[in-house]
C-alpha cells in the first residue's frame, strides 16, 4: 500500500474520532448549561412558592 492510499484511510479514521469527540464535548457542555439554567429556575420558583406560603400563613 502506498502512502497516498494509506493516508485516505488514516484521514478517515482520525476524522471520525475527532468529529465524534468534539461533537460530544460541545453537546455535553451545552447540556450542563441548559440543566443548570433549568435547575436555577426551578429553585427560584420553589423559593417563591415557599415565601408565598409563609406569607399567607403569617396573615
Amino acid at each position, binding site marked *: *500500500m*502506498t502512502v497516498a492510499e494509506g493516508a485516505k484511510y488514516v484521514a478517515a479514521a*482520525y476524522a*471520525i*474520532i475527532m468529529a465524534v*469527540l468534539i461533537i*460530544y*464535548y460541545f453537546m455535553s457542555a451545552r447540556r450542563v448549561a441548559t440543566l443548570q439554567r433549568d*435547575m436555577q429556575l*426551578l429553585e427560584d420558583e420553589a423559593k417563591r412558592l415557599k415565601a408565598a406560603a409563609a406569607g399567607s400563613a403569617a396573615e
Partner: protein
Amino acid sequence: MKKLLSAPVLFLGAGALLIIGILLAFWYSPIDASSMGFSQKIFYYHAPIAETALVAFGVSFVAAILYLRSQDLKWDRLGVVCVRLGLLFSILVMATGMIWGKAAWGSWWDWEPRLTTFLLVCFLYAAYFVLRSVVDEEQRRATYAAVFAIIAFIDVPITWFATRLLPAGMHPVVITAGGTGMPGSMFLPFMISMLGMTLLLVALIRRDYEIETIKDRVSDLKTSLGG
C-alpha cells in the same frame, strides 16, 4: 489540587496531549515497515481509545459493586456515565478498526477473537441501556443495571486476553508481558496519546456525572413543585 483536577484543566490537558501525540505520530514516528505501512498511523488513537473504553467498563463494574453494597444512587449515576462513555469509545474503536482492517488486511471485518469479543462488548453494553429504559422505579432500575453491568464485564477481560490466548487471529498484539514490541519512536506518541485519552475520559466522566446529578435534582424539584 482540586483546581488541578477541575474539568476545564483536564480537558485542556487531554487536548494538548492528544495534539502532541498525533503530531509525533505523523512527524516523529517512522512509517511501519510491515504490510500495514502508512495505515499503521491509525494505531496511535485506535489503541488508546480501545484501552480507555475497557477502563470505563472497569469503573462501571466497580461502581455496580459499590451500588449493590450501599444502595447509594451516586454509584448508579457513575455506572451509567461510564457505560455510556465506554460504549461511545467502543463504537469509535469498531469504526476505526474496520477502516484499519480494510487498509491493512483488505477486509472490513473478520470473525477473529478480538474483533468478535469486542463486538459482543458493544452489544452487551447497548443492552444495558435497553434494560434501564424498561424499568421505571429508580432503585429497582439501578439494582438490575448494576447486576447486568457486573455480568457484562465478564466479556471485558476475555476481549483483552483474546489476542494473547488465541494468537491465531489477524489482530496484532502490541503490549505483552515481554514488552511493547515497538521502537521508542512509536512507543512515545502512543503513550502520550494514551495519557491524553485517559485524561479525556476522566474529564468526560466528571462532566457527564455532573449532568446526571443535575438531572436528578431537576427531577426532584419538578416533583416537589407538583409538575
